[in-house]
């Protein structure tokens, strides 16, 4: 590991100023960044520790739930406002990592966590994300965990977060600060597909900081479900996951939100499926039809062929549970 400088940030503005200097990175819980530094995947010159900044609050105001970037994943998942207003987020967080990791992990760190692709992590193997133009080791390699949607010639990695899948479904807004002040970005526009620039995971500029997120109030609380399918029952990344939020009244789906995890370089929101669900009565045949539609355009590689069927089944199952057709 390269020698690096470590400073504690005194203010948000201080962080923004520090980030102007190339080679500087924010450290929050450190659960991803430190691993990447140990493996030599990233080698910052300077770390700015933001964990002392007053960005931990979880508050409900005028139709919105605001969560500061430093609210820990464990705290958010147990928070009563979150559990009452946005249970989907709580479920997704609890499905992620382990209790120990969630006790350190932050909202911003979770959003910014990098892919778990083995080729990205191993500095002796090719990876366009880590080392642009070095090639993609995964495309013809061991790609069991990799994407089936939105891949490019250069990268087939997935974004590994569970939390982000729920946030994408919940029409969240990200609050960002930079040199020019604050800006807001739709959560679904935060992460990007790999395209020709797989080295960039998202649209956050190098000198910007995430301050927090805002989730608009909704009527999904009674019909939300996060289904995560994984190789072991805890402490494993999703093979596929599905976040479902339904607004059901009088037996009819008024409005729906659906997003998948483990299938793309960003949380994969299913807009067409949401439209197709609206105004219909929950039923297995409907959900099967939705799932079929959701898989249009899926493209598999040697070891992740199974994900197409699994993701389709997961959509059906998550809808069944969220709509109350079967117990969880």
């Amino acid at each position, binding site marked *: 590991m390269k020698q690096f400088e470590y400073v504690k940030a005194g203010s948000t503005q201080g962080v923004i100023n520090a980030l102007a200097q190339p080679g500087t990175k924010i450290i929050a819980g450190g659960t991803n960044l430190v691993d990447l530094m140990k493996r030599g995947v990233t080698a910052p010159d300077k770390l700015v520790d933001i964990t002392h900044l007053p960005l931990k609050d979880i508050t409900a105001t005028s139709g919105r739930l605001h969560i500061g970037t430093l609210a820990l994943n464990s705290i958010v998942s147990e928070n009563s406002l979150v559990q009452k207003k946005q249970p989907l987020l709580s479920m997704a967080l609890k499905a992620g990592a382990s209790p120990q990791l969630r006790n350190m992990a932050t909202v911003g760190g979770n959003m910014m966590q990098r892919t778990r692709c083995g080729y990205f992590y191993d500095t002796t193997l090719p990876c366009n994300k880590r080392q642009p133009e070095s090639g993609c080791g995964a495309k013809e390699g061991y790609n069991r965990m990799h994407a089936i949607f939105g891949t490019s010639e250069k990268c087939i990695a997935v974004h590994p977060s569970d939390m982000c899948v729920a946030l994408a479904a919940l029409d969240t807004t990200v609050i960002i600060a930079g040199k020019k002040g604050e800006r807001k970005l739709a959560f679904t526009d935060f992460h990007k597909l790999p395209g020709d620039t797989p080295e960039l995971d998202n649209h956050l500029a190098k000198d910007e900081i995430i301050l927090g997120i805002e989730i608009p109030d909704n009527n999904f609380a009674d019909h939300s479900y996060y289904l995560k399918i994984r190789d*072991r*029952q805890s402490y494993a990344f999703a093979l596929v996951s599905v976040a479902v939020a339904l607004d059901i009244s009088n037996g009819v789906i008024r409005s729906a939100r659906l997003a998948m995890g483990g299938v793309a370089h960003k949380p994969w929101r299913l807009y067409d499926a949401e439209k197709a669900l609206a105004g219909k009565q929950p039923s297995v045949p409907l959900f099967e039809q939705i799932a079929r539609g959701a898989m249009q355009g899926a493209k598999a590689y040697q070891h992740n062929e199974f994900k197409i069927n699994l993701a389709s*089944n997961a959509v059906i199952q998550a809808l069944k549970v969220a709509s109350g057709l079967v117990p969880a």
Partner: protein
Amino acid sequence: MNKDFIGESLDRVDGRLKVTGAAKYSGEYKPAGLTYGVLVPATITSGILNAIDTKAALRASGVIAVITPFNAPKVPGYQPDAPRPMKGLKLFNDNKIHFNGQPVALVIADTFERATHAASLIKCKYERQSFATNFHENMETNSKPAGEQHKEYVRGEANAYKSAPFIVEESYTLPSEMHNPMELHVTTAIWDGDDKVTLYTKSQGVISSQRAIATAFNLEQKNVQINSHFVGGAFGSSLRTWPHEIAAVQAARMVKRPVRVTLTREQMFLLVGYRPLTVQKIGIGATADGKLVGITHESFSQTATYEDFTERSVNVSRFLYASPNANTRYKIVPLNVGVPAPMRGPGEATGAYALESALDELSYKLNIDPIELRLKNYADVNPETNLPWSSKYLKECYQQGAARIGWDKRAQKPGTNRDGEWLVGYGMGGGAFGAYRGKTQARIILSADGTVVIKSATSDIGPGTATAMVVIAADRLGLSADKITFELGNSALPVAPTQGGSSTVSSVGSAVNDVCVALKQKLYNLSGKPENSTDPIDYTNVLQQHNLPSLELTTESDVNPDAKKYAMYSFSAHFVQVYVHPVTGVVKIKKVVAVVDGGKIINMKTASSQMIGGAVGGIGMAMTEEAVIDDRYGKYINSNFADYHVPVNADIPQIEAIFIDKPDPVLNPLGTKGIGEISLIGVAPAVANAVYNATGRRIREMPITPDKILKG
């Protein structure tokens, strides 16, 4: 006196030390002047290391030396003219690269972090050669392993199963599984002058480590001291002395300071063995009423190009069932990988997976309950040797396991038992593991205050060895457990065998038994009581009467000469209930019942823990564990705890451990047989069989991940 401690539940005598962090593991000794060695991995998979540039590393702060094949002092034991040339990988002895990640250098610095950084600065020039790591593509280029024990075996007629009216002919695949103990492998080496060295190292056998280091460096055995006081799990990965341990000793000699070498988790996948990828072909045939006609069992398993390793995986098919015909064969497939090593339940766990799966398949073909099929072919004597069993209560294992799991709720027709959306299935698997005993010495010291210390150079890799020994001594001496201390993990203690093959209680426990009996005898003699008196005596009074500050005795216990006349095995039956979700492919193991005939049980609590640990290992084998190599690079792609899945709590249901607890009359004076290995054997097939019973889907390639359940 005559307190019956045996079979009670004594808490671990070192439990408090372990949970408070007071127990000192090998990586926690910090002798004055300690330096840190970090291994530099080769980035090619086969070839020659032509040159190595260490300049930048040597300039880096804190770096003391870099050992490479070009400057390493020769290890005497590695040389072909050594009295006993060592086998296996010889680090820094030559410049051949046999597998990806093979260490090409050892950087020594004043801190671990600085050594790690300097290691990243090393540059190598290689001549690349072609390599092979893909097992399945190379399965045909196998060879027959050398050695009498691996010879082809034929009883009756070979392939007789083919003539039977009911046949199963299938192939079963187990991927490579890593031992992955929690504690990393670590060795600290401290030289005292030129001819004495002390090691703190992770070892299952301090005496065998002592011999290996003495051989490697051409030292007198007594001048090598091995300490391994606490071991944070090993599962077979510390049965031998590995090249990085020798490298630590070599480095300490070179820099004239103590050196500690700690493997990284990634290096744990490369340098300390593993259960090898194995494909087993089984043919099994029976008559319509379920009598076996023949079993043919052939095993192909991965080994290294530089050293052969063969598991005795097919042996179980020779003796577990009374089949008139049986033939077995071993094949090994050399690849550019590190050499495998025994792993918990070595051989039998792999073999029983195939045999017990095939038998289950046969039971459905015959439409006979799997337990009944086993009972129909119950071996009353060992069919391989025709020797009587020293003891065998496998029938009782079947009966008790079936009762506890609720076997009567099992549907004979797969895929028909439901609980809501979930498919419910029951499965079982049996197993056997040899019961062993080795020559062992033990010393006992009774002090004037009435406390007793017993010493023997065994190890404790986790089962609770010292606790079991205290129980035995308390029982034999009629003392309370808190008066007794057991010392292990140091090669200066009386000679004991390596902790492996589930033999420690049998070997060391017998020695403890014998030394206690001898001490008691001596005390009775001193007290003037008749030889076989049962009157209680006060030990401290006897010492006082004779003005003795203490009394010390050392005895040696050896195997029972009658043992040759018997087949000696522990037996087990594992029962599993699973829930399988037909839409998501998720498998939940709901309950495990492990029933073991392991002879007399010494300490119920730690023995049950053994059973639970073994069942967890078996669940890992069945459900989660698989080390994956990218064959284009010859490199493991999941060599970390995030991607290589050992089971976690959420994967583990209630595990009920039941012991038959009947003494074996032959193996040793305690009546024990051994439980460490048998606890894992038969678990994986029980899970796979339960999944079949639930779903009608037979998965013949472990681990059983959701995609395999859903595959059409």
